[in-house]
């Protein structure tokens, strides 16, 4: 089974991206997916994307419209607030499963 790559992105300071990353990994693993997660700050996205080539980006901060245009993005707020996180995990899982055959 393929290992999917997730990039979580936060603003600066305390790395909410890491909190989101751990939650994301936990919930997606429960849905039967193999996940590799790395985190970065919003200012680092453009340099990280070509190197890491993530399948999805989960951001807890705003990303400009031109940033990593080809990568599907999900707003990671539910992983921080807990509200709607199962639903978000379902959405991400569905998307990843849909690209698995590509």
């Amino acid at each position, binding site marked *: 089974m393929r290992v999917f790559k997730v990039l979580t992105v936060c603003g600066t*300071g*305390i790395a909410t991206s890491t909190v989101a990353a751990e939650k994301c990994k936990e919930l997606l693993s429960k849905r039967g997916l193999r996940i590799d997660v790395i985190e970065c700050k919003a200012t680092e996205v453009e340099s990280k994307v070509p190197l890491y080539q993530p399948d999805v980006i989960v951001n*807890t*901060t*705003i990303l400009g419209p031109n940033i990593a245009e080809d990568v599907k993005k999900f707003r990671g*707020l539910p992983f*921080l*607030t807990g509200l709607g996180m199962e639903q978000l995990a379902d959405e991400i899982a569905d998307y990843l499963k849909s690209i698995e055959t590509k």
Partner: protein
Amino acid sequence: MCKENLIKSDLVFIMQNVKSRQEILEHMANRLMDEGYVKESFKKAIIEREEIYSTGLPIGDIGVAIPHTDRVHVKKSIISIATLSHSVEFLEMGNPNKIVDVDIIFMLAIKEGDSHIDVLTDLMSIIQDGMILDKISRSNEKEVALLLNEKLHNLKDLRANHI
């Protein structure tokens, strides 16, 4: 294991009556500076950061904000808390088009490198609990400090025992 309390009752502010997020952020930052937890640069940094990377989190009926900035401005780790007599507007984290009416503010001044992730994760699980938030909004300074320090220590112990 370090058992230092991250919340001190004299840096818990109950029923603050302010007109804007700038006002409460300034007040909290000033107090943190007075008590020696942060540098002078902290106040400007945290207000500016909030405008770019907003930290409002809607948790059901209660709005929470977790303002923070780079640890270079922090001298000693602490979490300062304010409950507001009436809510003020913050913008939602990751979505500055959305307004969050905030009732409780957790200002995070965290110095350490690795443990701060644990602190943040633990704080998030506490914040997600609407019952705890409700309790905080109805408690005095000492009660808030006691409640949260206990919760944070419990979570830390749980983690330690799982290793």
